[in-house]
């Protein structure tokens, strides 16, 4: 009976009071909710305010005709099912009422059964209309969603940094995004354009091979190429991957998707890596070559070496191999620091104690060159940092050992501790040979050792400061260097008091 859970709402517009009351009573017995109006004006007011399920309109009323009431209601509430009630139907009014959307005529006088039958029919119609309406709205909403999905997907693909290009089995362009233009280095691609002519030859080759394959094989192929090789624009390295698109039966290749990726950064890292590898091999090879050289001399009977010379060569070979061992250990330490696999035991470390210990340990080395070490600190202050003791002491040792190594005879080393906010500042200053500006720049790079007439005879792996820098970086500290060639260098290390490691 009901369209929804609620009882159906019926509007009754008739100027005859006895009929209104009679019909109202009949419909209420049937369970309908009934509103009545005694003239056209009132009928329009009610009928346009409330969305009635069914309206029963008397055709002839003193003020406004039922046709006008019908027109107004239909305009405002197109889903209200309207019946015209009249004692004498003319053909013209019937046509007009139908045109305006009346459901039908109920001829007066009518029996309760006739009335209810018509109302039931009207309600059924109303249910259908409302259901259709609901479906229509639902469909519209879904279409909207679909359109939204599609535009969202488009936006995503268009914003991808990777280039995407799709071609059909004839090698014609079907789809591409803006990044594709950049990574294939073309100004524009036309829809359905034969794409092979514009693609880089490396990509073209594998895309063509995929399309020429008679049967579909789900295997992607990648190729790398360079852009702007001879132009003023920066060189770009690109990796393009071509994947076949299967047809519906997955038997034939229906097209190719090409995804192009800018791999310039990877290439740069790769380059740095191979540069590092070649540097390492050079540094490792040198002591081995020198040692082999000495062994060859020792084994050469034509040379008539003196015993003294022989001993010298053996000593020097041993020395070279020992420093090679040190270098390998340093390299392992660097890689441990970089991979962060160093086992640290973070303790409260009093730097004043550490520095004093290390100074004492180095006195012997310093004495060889008659170097004086001065250690300045405020006796009242404690210089505590949270750190791994061996790791930090190695930093101090490295800096102090450099200050002695790169110093002059009778030189001085000043080492001091200060508080600097949440940091402890360790400064190591020497009166040594200093660095040239271009040497200072490369100070912390692996294997860099200032090579000039003044550093002649000073040995080292070129890894010490690199380890210092990497260690301090790990502790979120800072290292600064100041230097003047011929005058000396100063290193300042800021270590946070609280461990952030």
């Amino acid at each position: 009976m009901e369209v929804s859970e609620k009882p159906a709402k019926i509007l009754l517009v008739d100027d005859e009071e006895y009929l209104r009351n009679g019909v109202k009573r009949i419909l209420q017995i049937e369970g309908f909710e009934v509103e009545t109006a005694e003239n056209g004006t009132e009928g329009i007011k009610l009928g346009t305010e409330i969305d009635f399920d069914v309206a029963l309109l008397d055709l002839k009323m003193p003020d406004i005709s039922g046709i006008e009431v019908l027109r107004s209601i239909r305009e405002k509430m197109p889903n209200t099912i309207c019946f015209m009630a009249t004692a004498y139907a003319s053909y013209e009014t019937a046509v007009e009422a139908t045109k305006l959307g009346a459901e039908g005529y109920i001829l007066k006088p009518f029996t309760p059964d006739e009335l209810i039958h018509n109302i039931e029919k009207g309600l059924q119609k109303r249910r259908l209309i409302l259901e259709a309406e609901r479906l229509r709205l639902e469909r519209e909403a879904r279409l909207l969603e679909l359109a939204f999905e599609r535009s969202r997907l488009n936006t995503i693909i268009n914003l991808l940094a990777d280039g995407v290009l799709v071609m059909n089995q004839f090698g014609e362009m079907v789809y591409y995004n803006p990044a594709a233009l950049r990574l294939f280095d073309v100004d524009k691609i036309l829809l359905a354009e034969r794409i092979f002519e514009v693609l880089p030859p490396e990509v073209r080759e594998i895309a063509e091979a995929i399309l020429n394959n008679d049967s579909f094989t789900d295997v992607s192929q990648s190729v790398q190429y360079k852009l702007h090789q001879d132009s003023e624009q920066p060189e770009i390295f690109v990796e393009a991957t071509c994947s076949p698109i299967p047809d519906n039966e997955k038997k034939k290749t229906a097209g190719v998707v090409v995804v192009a990726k800018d791999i310039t950064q990877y290439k740069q890292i790769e380059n740095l890596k191979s540069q590092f590898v070649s540097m390492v091999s050079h540094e490792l090879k040198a002591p081995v070559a020198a040692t082999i050289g000495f062994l060859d001399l020792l084994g050469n009977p034509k040379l008539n070496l003196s015993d003294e010379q022989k001993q010298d060569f053996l000593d020097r070979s041993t020395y070279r191999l020992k420093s090679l061992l040190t270098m390998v250990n340093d390299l392992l330490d660097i890689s441990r620091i970089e991979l962060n696999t160093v086992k640290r035991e973070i303790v409260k470390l009093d730097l004043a104690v550490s520095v004093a210990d290390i100074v004492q340990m180095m006195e012997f080395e310093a004495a060889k060159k008659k170097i004086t070490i001065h250690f300045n600190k405020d006796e009242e202050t404690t210089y505590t940092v949270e750190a791994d003791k061996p790791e930090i002491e190695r930093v101090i040792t490295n800096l102090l050992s450099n200050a002695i190594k790169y110093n002059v005879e009778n030189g001085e080393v000043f080492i001091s501790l200060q508080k600097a906010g949440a940091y402890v500042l360790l400064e190591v200053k020497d009166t040594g040979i200093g660095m040239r500006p271009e040497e200072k720049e490369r100070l912390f790079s692996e294997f860099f050792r200032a090579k000039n007439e003044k550093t002649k005879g000073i040995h080292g792996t070129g890894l010490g400061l690199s380890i210092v820098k990497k260690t301090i970086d790990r502790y979120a500290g800072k290292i600064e260097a100041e230097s003047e060639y011929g005058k000396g260098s100063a290193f300042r290390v800021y270590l946070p008091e609280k461990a952030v490691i």
Partner: protein
Amino acid sequence: MNYEKKILLVDDDIDVLEQNKILFEAEGFQVETAENSVDGYEKFLEFKPACAIVDLMMEEYDSGFVLAHKIKRHPMGKKIPVFIVTAVASQVGMQFDSMTPEEREWIHAEDVLNKPVVISDILVKLSDFYKEQQ
């Protein structure tokens, strides 16, 4: 054409330098050594060698090229062979095994050889060079 048995060795590895000095001296050469390219050029001017063997990587990764270039630009240097030696030719992306005349012109050296130096090879190259000069 005979050449004076005078050779200049430039290498920043003093051990290698001394080893080669001993070996060339054993072959009857007069040997002068330098540990860097600046010193090497001065020794070249003073010593007037019949041949120079220059290490590639010294202060800089290409110090040897620079020195060879300077020597070859000097009128005296044009007449002598200069050999660049390196332990890492292939690692630094430089392959000179089969040098074209253009490359030789650009590099300003007769040849780039792998370390360690094989004295007998140098002797052959040296006499070949002076034979061609005739």
